[in-house]
């Protein structure tokens, strides 16, 4: 192998550059920032379902609600957590409690770099804007 050392040095520099963000995070004392969710100020004590489940699967729940309401004309959802019956409505039920879209929806969605298009049509609660 001619000039093998050049290749090895080049590879080492490359690996260092690529992994530099990871190395930096590992070495720095500061922890990566995690979005802080603001709980509804005067909302119900319980969400429609268990909070951890909602955090992971609210998008599935909302998709199901959308299809059931629009395409099947059914509107009542019975919570598996409390047995309470809810109106399957994003603007009324969800945003009735989580009235601050900026601090509740957007904060996490921005962090996760997802852009749901709910609000192209559905009207966000007023106090935000």
């Amino acid at each position, binding site marked *: 192998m001619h000039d093998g050392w050049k290749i090895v040095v080049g590879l080492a520099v490359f690996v260092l550059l690529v992994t530099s963000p990871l190395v930096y995070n590992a070495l720095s004392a500061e922890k990566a920032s995690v979005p802080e969710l603001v709980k509804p100020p005067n909302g119900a004590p319980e969400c429609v379902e268990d909070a951890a489940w909602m955090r992971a699967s609210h998008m599935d729940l909302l998709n199901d609600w*959308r299809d059931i309401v629009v395409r099947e004309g059914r*509107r009542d959802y019975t919570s598996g957590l409390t047995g309470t019956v809810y109106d399957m409505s994003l603007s009324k039920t969800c945003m009735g409690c989580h009235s601050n879209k900026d601090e509740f929806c957007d904060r996490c969605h921005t962090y996760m770099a997802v852009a749901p298009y709910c609000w192209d049509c559905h009207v966000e609660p007023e106090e935000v804007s």
Partner: protein
Amino acid sequence: MDRTRRRFLQLAGAGVVGAAGGTALRAVAREPEAPGSVESVQPQAGISRRWAMVVNLKAVERHHSWDRIIEACHRAHNVPHFSSAKDEVKWIWTEEFEAAFPSQEQPYVTLEHHDRRVPVLCNHCDNPPCTRVCPTEATWKRESDGIVMMDWHRCIGCRYCVVACPYGSRSFNWRDPRTGLEEITKEFPTRMRGVVEKCTFCEERIARGLEPACAEACEHGEIVFGDLEDANSEVRRLLREHFTIRRKPTLGTQPQVYYIV
């Protein structure tokens, strides 16, 4: 060890396919696992219904109800107002008598009816041509009550339905509808640019046991809404006692908005 370039590429390719396939499989196999439940049938949905509307044109004229009706509907559903006719969006509007009922055209009667303004809307046809052309099933006739529904989540804006509707009941959002709204009703969504919209017989109000917004705005029976399957309903009584006409009946669409003229 026999490590050829060909062998390496084969292995790398197999690895990529395996990884992508696994992800895809997991996505397909994921079930909507909401812990809660939705009642299989909503209380009133089990009963067979056929919603219809009777417009009493004479009463509309007597009480000058045109603008009140349109205002009530368009406010309730965030229907935008644009001044240019090209961008117009409408759920309920008025037509001249001849335009609303072209098959009623005759030289002498027309003189008398010339200035009449007829409130017109989606006829929620029994045989709707608009739903048959929709490539995404974003519009369909609800079998439980005959309402011609729209799913604005699913509409791709191809406008086939706009062309198929012989009544001009469907509007396309050429512009962002929110720019045409002075005030937004929060209970109802707006639409977005590139989506078709029309009257839904206020299905969201009917579900809560309310009348459609236009019928509610009429205190003098200008618009009566009800169930054709119920022989004792107000619409059936009106249809029994009055001679009524429908828009363009010869097309065979079986419109379900009846006019007392």
